[in-house]
């Protein structure tokens, strides 16, 4: 039951997340660019990330829509969420010379700490879905109701 719920709900949650975050950046690309330039990494990298991040997010969302590409998309989502979580952790641990504002993300009202815990939760859910997906399904009379 939990397995079916997870496999059914988490891809939907991730599609919503990546479509929302990706298109929020695309619809206001200049704003996203300015925000990246205010982050503590080199400006040439920020210039590349301005286009790369929304492209990756929307590609993952598109791949999650199709059965054949859902599994690699879940791995890619885990990778992207992990990278962002590590970046936030580095900020929170003061690895950089200053703490940039967290105002550029899709959830602009959240602090870095809140971003961190949400990312941990989403990464955990995505990994759980991958694990459930890799296990063989056990026939159940409820299967046809949930899928």
């Amino acid at each position, binding site marked *: 039951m939990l397995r079916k719920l997870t496999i059914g709900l988490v891809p*939907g949650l991730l599609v*919503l997340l990546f479509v929302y975050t990706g298109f929020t950046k695309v619809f206001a690309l200049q704003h996203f660019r300015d925000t990246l330039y205010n982050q*503590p990494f080199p400006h040439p990298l920020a210039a590349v990330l301005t286009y790369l991040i929304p492209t990756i997010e929307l590609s993952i969302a598109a791949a999650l829509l199709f059965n054949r590409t859902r599994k690699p998309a879940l791995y890619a989502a885990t990778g992207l969420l992990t990278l962002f979580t590590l970046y936030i952790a580095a900020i929170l641990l003061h690895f950089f010379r200053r703490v*940039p*504002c967290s105002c550029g993300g*899709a959830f602009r009202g959240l602090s870095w700490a809140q971003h961190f815990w949400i990312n941990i939760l989403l990464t955990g859910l995505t990994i759980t879905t991958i694990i459930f997906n890799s296990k063989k399904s056990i026939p159940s009379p409820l299967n046809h109701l949930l899928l």
Partner: protein
Amino acid sequence: MKKYLLLIAIVGIATAWINKPVSHPLTVHNYSFTHYNTDGTRMYFGKDLTAINYIKGFDYICLSANTICTFMGNTANAHTDLTGNYFYTSDVPPAGIDDSGIYYDGF
């Protein structure tokens, strides 16, 4: 393809459009980059920041009352100098120079 995922994607696009950041004219400001300090940092002098609705004491500080106000910085904003280069608020030294060339060494 699962139709409910496609429906969720459409909802996501609509939500992103509704919640997209509004381009604000104060997001990026130009500041005059005059010359380098001896420690290699740049010196800037500000425009009339009140004319662009900056908040005194938060976004800017006036070094010489009602004449030249120099940049203090709102970290929520990105900034460019007149050469088009972005700079961080923390890069701006606590010093400035007014348009007559008088240098102010800190606040």
